[in-house]
Structures are given as structure tokens and as C-alpha cells.
């Protein structure tokens, strides 16, 4: 049987019904792309590429300030975290001791000095002016501990000391109402 005959019989034997098909249009994702582009621009603008992210630390109550200053450009940051019961140094949160040790223990101060010296030695000489010590301390810490850190930091060569705070333009008003109660 030839191919022609086979096809003819097939056509004659069963009736083929072809459904009406509508042209399915592709989903327009142009508007979605617009939204994503806006989000992308916003994220790129706000994302911090710094080696040190100065995020709000958990379990730490920050003091509040009206004024706020930006970290200097190309800053070489060494963070120091002063909790009520421990002091952590650097990006890698190296345990130094308790805040009390800063005042009472000679070895703790020596360790802190050695650590800060090591951090300074990693900074190129032409960038020493951009060396920043960022103190993130709990609001309830006595200032004697802060003074120790600032003293050691400046003696090592950190010319810029930043204190981490939370911006609150109304803290004076809040404080006033709290003190009146």
C-alpha cells in the first residue's frame, strides 16, 4: 500500500476536529522589570560595602543623639565593643576581658594596646590619618572605661574616635518629660 492510499484512508476513516486555538500572548514583564530596576538602584545606593558594618548590636543599649556625623571617607575602622560584662575588639570580636579589667588589670590594657598596634601596623602609612576607632558602648557603662579605651587608642595613633549612637531628634523633649514625672 502506498503512502498516498494510507493517508487517504485515514482521512476518510476518522474525522479530525481541529480546535480553535487563540494566540496566547506572552506575559508582559516590562512593568515588573521597572519595579525591580528601581529597587536595585535603591539597594545599590544604600548597601554598605565597608569592611566593617556598623550595625546596631543586640543586647546593647545605645545612647541617643540629635547630631550625627558620617564616617570619614576611606576610613580604616577598628571597632571596640563595650558591653556591660565584656569588651570585644576588632571585626573578629576578640574577647579582651571585662570592662573592669580595663581599669584594674595591667595585662588587659597591654593586650588592648598590642591589638590596636597590630591593627595600626596593617594600615598603610599614608592612610594613618584615616584610622578610626569606633567605640560601641552600652549607655550604662561608666566613663572611666571609655577614657581608658580613648587614651590607649590615641596613644597608639588613632586620631579619630567615633562613638556609636542612635539618632533621636527628640531625646531632649523625652528626657524632659521623663524627668518631670
Amino acid at each position, binding site marked *: 500500500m502506498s503512502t498516498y492510499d494510507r493517508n487517504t484512508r485515514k482521512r476518510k476513516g476518522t474525522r479530525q476536529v481541529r480546535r480553535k486555538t487563540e494566540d496566547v500572548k*506572552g506575559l*508582559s*514583564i*516590562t512593568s*515588573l*522589570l521597572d519595579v*525591580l530596576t528601581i529597587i*536595585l538602584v535603591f*539597594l*545599590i545606593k544604600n*548597601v*554598605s*560595602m565597608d569592611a566593617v*558594618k*556598623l*550595625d*546596631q548590636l543586640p543586647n546593647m543599649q*545605645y*545612647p541617643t*543623639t*540629635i*547630631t*550625627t*556625623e*558620617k564616617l570619614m571617607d576611606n576610613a580604616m575602622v577598628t571597632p571596640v565593643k563595650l558591653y556591660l560584662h565584656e569588651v570585644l575588639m576588632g571585626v573578629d570580636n576578640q574577647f579582651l576581658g571585662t570592662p573592669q579589667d580595663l581599669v584594674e588589670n*595591667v595585662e588587659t*590594657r*597591654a593586650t588592648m594596646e598590642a591589638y590596636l598596634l597590630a591593627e595600626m601596623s596593617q594600615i598603610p602609612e599614608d592612610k594613618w*590619618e584615616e584610622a578610626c576607632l569606633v567605640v560601641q*558602648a*552600652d*549607655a*550604662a*557603662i*561608666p*566613663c*572611666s572605661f*571609655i*577614657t581608658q579605651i*580613648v*587614651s590607649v*587608642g*590615641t*596613644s597608639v595613633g*588613632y*586620631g*579619630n*574616635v*567615633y*562613638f*556609636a*549612637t*542612635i*539618632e533621636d531628634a527628640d*531625646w*531632649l523633649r523625652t*528626657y*524632659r518629660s*521623663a*524627668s518631670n514625672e
Partner: protein
Amino acid sequence: MAVYRPSQARQQKGQTAPQEPNLVPIMNLFVSIIPFLILMISISQVALLALNFAGDEGGGGAGSSGGGADKEEIVQVHLMLKEHHTGLFPGMEIREPGSTNYTKIPWLAENMYDFDKLNDQLISLKEKYSESSEIAVVVHPEVLYDTLIRTIDLCKANGFVTVHYRSPKNVYIY
């Protein structure tokens, strides 16, 4: 004799319907970049209060040595916590250069400093010393960090942008 343009239909070539550019690869790129950026973004970033200890113009001054400007020539704000027979009292004291009349601002309650009064004093001091932008904050060891930062903040907010951080006495046991 009239000249007729050739038929436009003759000029037209076979046209296809305009196609949308394929945006799927761009979408894929976006969808992979955005989660990374969201991870890296820090929404609740902390604010910063700066003290500059570098050079002669420095706004700092660690310990009792000072950071540049002469101690006697700038206004000093003393922060104290304990009462002492030497004249210390819980509260704040403003010492103007060349004056022995110190403005005392006792605290309102325990660890409640009168920042309102300090603010008023700083406003009038700024009017008096309009050319100066320097001030020294002398903080006693027991005073809380919160009090120090609030004081520095008020100084900066009232135009004393260069704040010298000092402590009355430092004892180093090395």
C-alpha cells in the same frame, strides 16, 4: 501632465509584527542580585558622634593632656557624679575662661542631669563666644557614658562642634 507617485504598496517590504525583547535573562540577573543586596543592606545603622584627636586643631584630647587648644581659653563643662569636700557635687558645672564664677547645674534626681538647663546655658554661651567653636567636656570616671554622649551632643547641636574630651585625672598602672 500629471505625475503620480508610485504606489506605496509597491514600496513596502514584508513587515513582521514588532517583537518584545526577551527580558527573561535580565530578570534572572535581577532576581539573583537583589537577594544579595538585601542581605548586605543594613537598615538600622547606628549614628556616629565624632571626636578628632589628630593634630593641633584636634577636637579631642585624651586624658588630662588635652587635644590642642589651651585648657584655659575655652569653656569647660564638668560632669560629676559624687559629692566631695573639694567642691564636687552630682551634676554639671560650666567654667568660662577667665572667670571664677562657675555655673552649677545640680542633677534633678539620681542620674537625672538637667540637660534642659545645660542646653539654655550653651545657647547663651554660644552667643557670648560666637567666634569659638571649641568646648571641653571634663568627665569624672563614675559618670555614665550616656551622660557624656548627651552632653557632647548638646554641645555640638549648639554650635560647639569641636569637643575636647578630658578626664580630670588619669592613673595608669603599667
